[in-house]
């Protein structure tokens, strides 16, 4: 009796080392410009080449400006330091022969968006990337996790990761959510429940009737934020929905796909397999979620009272006080008492076509509120952008007063010029509300695309009637 994580672990287990750690074979390795330069440097110093070139796929995403238009190349990036990093990725990919969807490519985008949509992420794979949101790919039944730069070098050099096995956690989402509740709300609720360290040391398998009902894109939002619950691995067993998604995106021939399909559909946890921890959540009771503080676990129903130090224990008191101060929450009792300045729809959590469709539906025919200085939509990839434009979503956003941008990580972490100014309050569909995450002294409230869109129109959080 084995869990899906156990099976994928065994399937990729090359050998156990003297240290007790294992070498796990890596099927796919994604690279971006931020966490790879030092790894390539290390490789060159050792006079090594990438073990298996075809395993590696690269794209620049963190530093790229989102106002670049067509025919833009790396050398045109205005921020000199960002430019060096993006040019360095170009150089390294050329030197080592790694396939890159570069800044000029119509397929460039956030690495976790382009991997699945270009058919490079396949069920049952082990996938790593120097980025903690690599857990996203678990939505297709992959054992996927974020790694550090030393490990990026190690994977390039050996095609293996040197790791110890994680514990197993099962999270079952049962039931049907009410209107205006999306997978972003569900995963935020879950993080609020178990805390940002609740999943530390675990690989989390998400299952239950809710997971079965939702699309692969919605599943990606959930696995993406497993890391915000402390778990570097989030995983969902492949089913018919997964197979249909993969077939649609795949460059594989029909026969190969048929053979693979049989194997993929068998990738699941055995009945009766034991988990070290199990959580069951009735999703029908969950309301739209919005974070109020500086950690993703500081989340409430959008219309609940913001926590105060009253009645909190000592540990929480300290955290609540620090967070309220940073977030500029004084006498306001509810999130809807706060005035928002900016809206960001994008990031590896919520920048796929379904996210943009949901947001567009809310803003269609409306205009952004007077207090919103800027509302930006940043599609996750060139392909998402193209699809959205084909559907006319860009026009819907622009007519409402949003700015329509080019793909990249953008204001999720503000490595490019898309940043909050000090004390600006942002409704954001991204994944981290840490201090300064979106810009020095900026204030981030995490929420779903639907809620962010509504906040743009309404000026503060609420629910469309």
């Amino acid at each position, binding site marked *: 009796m084995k869990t899906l994580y156990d099976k994928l672990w065994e399937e990729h287990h090359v050998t156990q080392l003297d240290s007790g750690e294992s070498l796990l074979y890596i099927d796919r390795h994604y690279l971006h410009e931020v*966490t790879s330069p030092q790894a390539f440097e290390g490789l060159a110093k050792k006079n090594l080449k990438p073990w298996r070139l075809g395993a590696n796929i690269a794209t620049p995403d963190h530093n790229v400006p989102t106002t670049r238009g067509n025919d833009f190349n790396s050398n045109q990036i205005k921020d000199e330091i960002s430019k060096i990093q993006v040019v360095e990725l170009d150089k390294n990919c050329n030197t080592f022969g790694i396939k890159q969807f570069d800044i000029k490519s119509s397929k460039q985008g956030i690495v976790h968006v382009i991997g699945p949509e270009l058919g490079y992420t396949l069920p049952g794979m082990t996938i790593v990337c120097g980025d903690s949101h690599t857990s996203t790919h678990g939505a297709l039944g992959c054992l996927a996790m974020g790694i550090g730069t*030393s490990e990026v070098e190690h994977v390039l050099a050996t*095609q293996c990761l040197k790791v110890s096995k994680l514990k197993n956690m099962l999270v079952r989402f049962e039931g049907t959510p009410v209107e205006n509740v999306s997978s972003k709300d569900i995963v935020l609720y879950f993080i609020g429940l178990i805390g940002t360290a609740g999943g530390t040391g675990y690989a989390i398998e998400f299952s239950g009737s809710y997971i079965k009902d939702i699309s692969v894109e919605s599943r990606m939002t959930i696995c993406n934020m497993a890391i915000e619950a402390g778990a570097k691995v989030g995983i969902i067993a492949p089913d018919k929905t997964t197979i249909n998604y993969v077939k649609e995106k795949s460059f594989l021939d029909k026969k190969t796909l048929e053979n693979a399909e049989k194997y993929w559909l068998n990738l699941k946890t055995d009945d009766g397999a034991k988990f070290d921890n199990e959580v069951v959540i009735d999703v029908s009771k969950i309301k739209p979620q919005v974070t109020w503080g500086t950690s993703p676990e500081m989340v409430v129903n959008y219309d609940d009272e913001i926590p105060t130090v009253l009645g909190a224990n000592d540990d929480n008191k300290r955290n609540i006080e620090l967070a309220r101060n940073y977030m500029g929450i004084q006498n306001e009792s509810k999130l809807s008492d706060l005035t928002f300045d900016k809206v960001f729809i994008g990031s590896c959590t919520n920048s796929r076509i379904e996210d943009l469709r949901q947001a567009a539906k809310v803003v269609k025919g409306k205009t952004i509120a007077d207090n919103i200085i800027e509302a930006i939509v940043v599609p996750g990839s060139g392909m998402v952008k193209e699809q959205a434009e084909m559907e006319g979503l860009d026009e819907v956003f622009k007519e409402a007063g949003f700015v329509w941008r080019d793909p990249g990580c953008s204001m999720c972490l503000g490595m490019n010029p898309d940043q909050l100014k000090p004390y600006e309050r942002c409704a954001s569909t991204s994944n981290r509300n840490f201090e300064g995450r979106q810009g020095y002294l900026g204030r981030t409230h995490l929420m779903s695309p639907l809620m962010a869109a509504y906040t743009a129109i309404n000026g503060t959080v609420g629910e469309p009637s």
Partner: protein
Amino acid sequence: MTSNSEGLIIDGVVSYIDRDNIDTDQIIPTEYLKSIKKFGYEDYLFDGWRYKDDGKLGVKKEDRHINQDFILNNKPYSESKILLVRDNFGCGSSREHAVWALRDFGIKAVMASSFGDIFYNNCFKNSVLPIKLRKNEIEELFGLVKKDIVELSIDLQQRKIYIDDKHKLNFKVDDHLIDRIIYGLDDVDVSLKEKEKILNFEKKRMSSKPWIYANE
């Protein structure tokens, strides 16, 4: 393989930050991830708390607005090798730059009640020792450091923290991880000793799961 005898004992003044969930964005903000170097991050450690202005990569400490209230800006804490924090230290982003910043500043050991998984792994690759202690032990240490300047001695081989003649705390770390810190082993060298096994594994996988290799 040479033993780094200096690596066996970490001692000196304990600096502390009384917070849970210090994420890697706090340890080093995104701006500094634009560097393509592996060293030179010391001035950017805890940048958002250490300074009262917004920093840029390459701007020197001398040209910044220093926050004199922040512990690491004051002696003797500014020369501390040991850092005490609370729960879930290093959660969030996988950026190894967070460990590089601690290392470059001179921090050799961090004591917390828990750590983010990816951060914890990254530490051992850069000779920074993350020490997990029980919550009550962390509480006890905070009680001491808030009262007075505390000097500790951490014995890596014995897995003991000596507070004074009477008090010591035990901690657990896997042998192979401690060895990494003491001997500074290179993972790539160690793993490449298994080259044949990896090649054999890969060969089998290519025939049993051809779709994985289809784009090559």
